[in-house]
């Protein structure tokens, strides 16, 4: 017998936790939206532009939710918004989450992070800070965020955090307003020692406005960008190989949503993930177990008869996911040909598909499959 602590790598601990959580359906990871409003007014945002002043989680509500999460077995929590640093009680909410024994990650635009916040985070470190970046100049930032001199402040915040040993991740929405700057933004992240990622899917606003989708890149632009950042698309190859080796399944959800992860919105509503705005219950009104059970029911959904995704061998590497499909069509089991085209084009360039053209282009989409609502369909770029 030994009571002495074993030395185990963090990645191994995480692997064991995720594996156990998947088997027992333990809600291990979550995101919690503590405020929906933001100090930026980004054109592509699907949350803040329609948010109201009262879309703020109080400290009392946050504590109640953190206690429920901790009791249910949640370990990793992403605090997200809106812009979390604009929350008047962010410091108290952050410390409450820490004291509940949660591993905290933060989503932010970093505009408000000066020395004081950087020192606070250095003393009470998060596991990581994920910063949205939009360009390499104040002018480009202002065009997207409508806030002057934001670039200088954000870059300073990145430096302040990195100087204090805080793990920083720079992420960019890949869209028509940023596409030309992505390679330089990646180089900036590498030069500073931050990790880098981008997301090529732009969602309609959660309250229905499809305007952000007008900024979506066409499939060929997306894959050209992939190649510019990753010549030969080598980082996509292992996932593609695994995906084609697996037998297609008719289950809509193949990710961890509802299995070991979930999202809590600013009013306590629970959805599959931060990209899904359809809630199945509310942690401020119901018990966690009841809501978690209901979420489990949602992710058991199956595709309707003849749905093109049900037999697609590229589904686990699809550019879209049930949440982004849900935001475009209203249903997680809908179908967005734009995502399908991006995925097939990637498969073609990697040698896994003969033409890069999805079957639905030549054969059509079955009539019983729900496609993007008219406003979103109109906003999507002309397909290449």
């Amino acid at each position: 017998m030994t009571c002495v602590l074993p030395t185990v790598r963090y990645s191994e601990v995480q692997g064991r936790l995720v594996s156990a959580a998947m088997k027992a359906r333990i809600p291990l990871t979550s995101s919690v939206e503590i405020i929906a409003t933001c100090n930026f007014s980004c054109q592509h945002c699907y949350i803040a532009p329609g948010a109201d002043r009262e879309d703020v989680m109080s400290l009392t509500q946050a504590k109640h939710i953190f206690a429920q999460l901790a009791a249910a077995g949640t370990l990793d929590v992403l605090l997200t918004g809106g812009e979390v640093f604009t929350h008047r009680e962010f410091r108290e909410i952050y410390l409450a989450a820490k004291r509940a024994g949660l591993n905290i990650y933060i989503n932010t635009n970093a505009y408000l992070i000066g020395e004081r916040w950087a020192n606070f985070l250095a003393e009470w470190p998060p596991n990581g800070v994920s910063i949205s970046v939009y360009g390499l100049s104040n002018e480009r930032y202002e065009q997207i965020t409508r806030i002057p001199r934001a670039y200088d402040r954000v870059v300073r915040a990145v430096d302040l955090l990195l100087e204090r040993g805080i793990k920083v991740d720079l992420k960019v929405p890949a869209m028509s307003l940023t596409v030309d700057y992505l390679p330089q933004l990646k180089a900036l992240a590498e030069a500073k020692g931050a990790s880098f990622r981008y997301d090529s899917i732009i969602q309609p606003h959660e309250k229905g406005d499809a305007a952000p989708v007008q900024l979506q890149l066409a499939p060929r632009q997306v894959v050209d960008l992939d190649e510019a950042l990753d010549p030969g698309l080598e980082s996509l190859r292992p996932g593609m190989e695994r995906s084609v080796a697996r037998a297609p399944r008719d289950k809509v959800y193949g990710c961890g949503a509802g299995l070991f992860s979930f999202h809590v919105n600013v009013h306590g509503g629970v959805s599959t993930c931060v990209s899904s705005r359809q809630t199945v219950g509310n942690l401020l009104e119901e018990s966690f177990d009841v809501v978690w059970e209901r979420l489990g029911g949602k992710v058991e959904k199956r595709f309707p008869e003849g749905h093109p995704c049900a037999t697609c061998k590229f589904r686990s590497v699809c550019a879209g996911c049930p949440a982004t499909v849900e935001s475009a069509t209203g249903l997680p089991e809908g179908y967005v040909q734009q995502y399908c085209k991006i995925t097939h084009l990637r498969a073609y360039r990697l040698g896994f598909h003969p033409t890069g053209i999805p079957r639905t282009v030549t054969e059509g989409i079955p009539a019983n499959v729900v496609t993007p609502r008219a406003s979103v369909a109109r906003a999507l770029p002309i397909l290449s």
Partner: protein
Amino acid sequence: MTVLYERTDGFVYRHVAGEHLLVALRRDRTAPMFMLTPTAGFLWEQLARPSSVETLAESLAAEYEVSREVATADVAAWLEQLQSLGAVAIHGGSR
């Protein structure tokens, strides 16, 4: 005089997905999280109130059916390690 040990307020204990974890609150720890063996997790729970090596060893021996000698040696090693991490301190002592 019997030395009593107690938990510090620098960590939060979690039992998640079958793993016993100590989550660090502040920067001045050597890692953000530590993993305990099940027996170490048991001892951590016993430390809910200040306890001596002897008391902890007695609980351990009773729970896991080991000799007092083995339990005492294990508890001493465990306390030394947790003290070095800053998770346990001598009750009433400086931290």
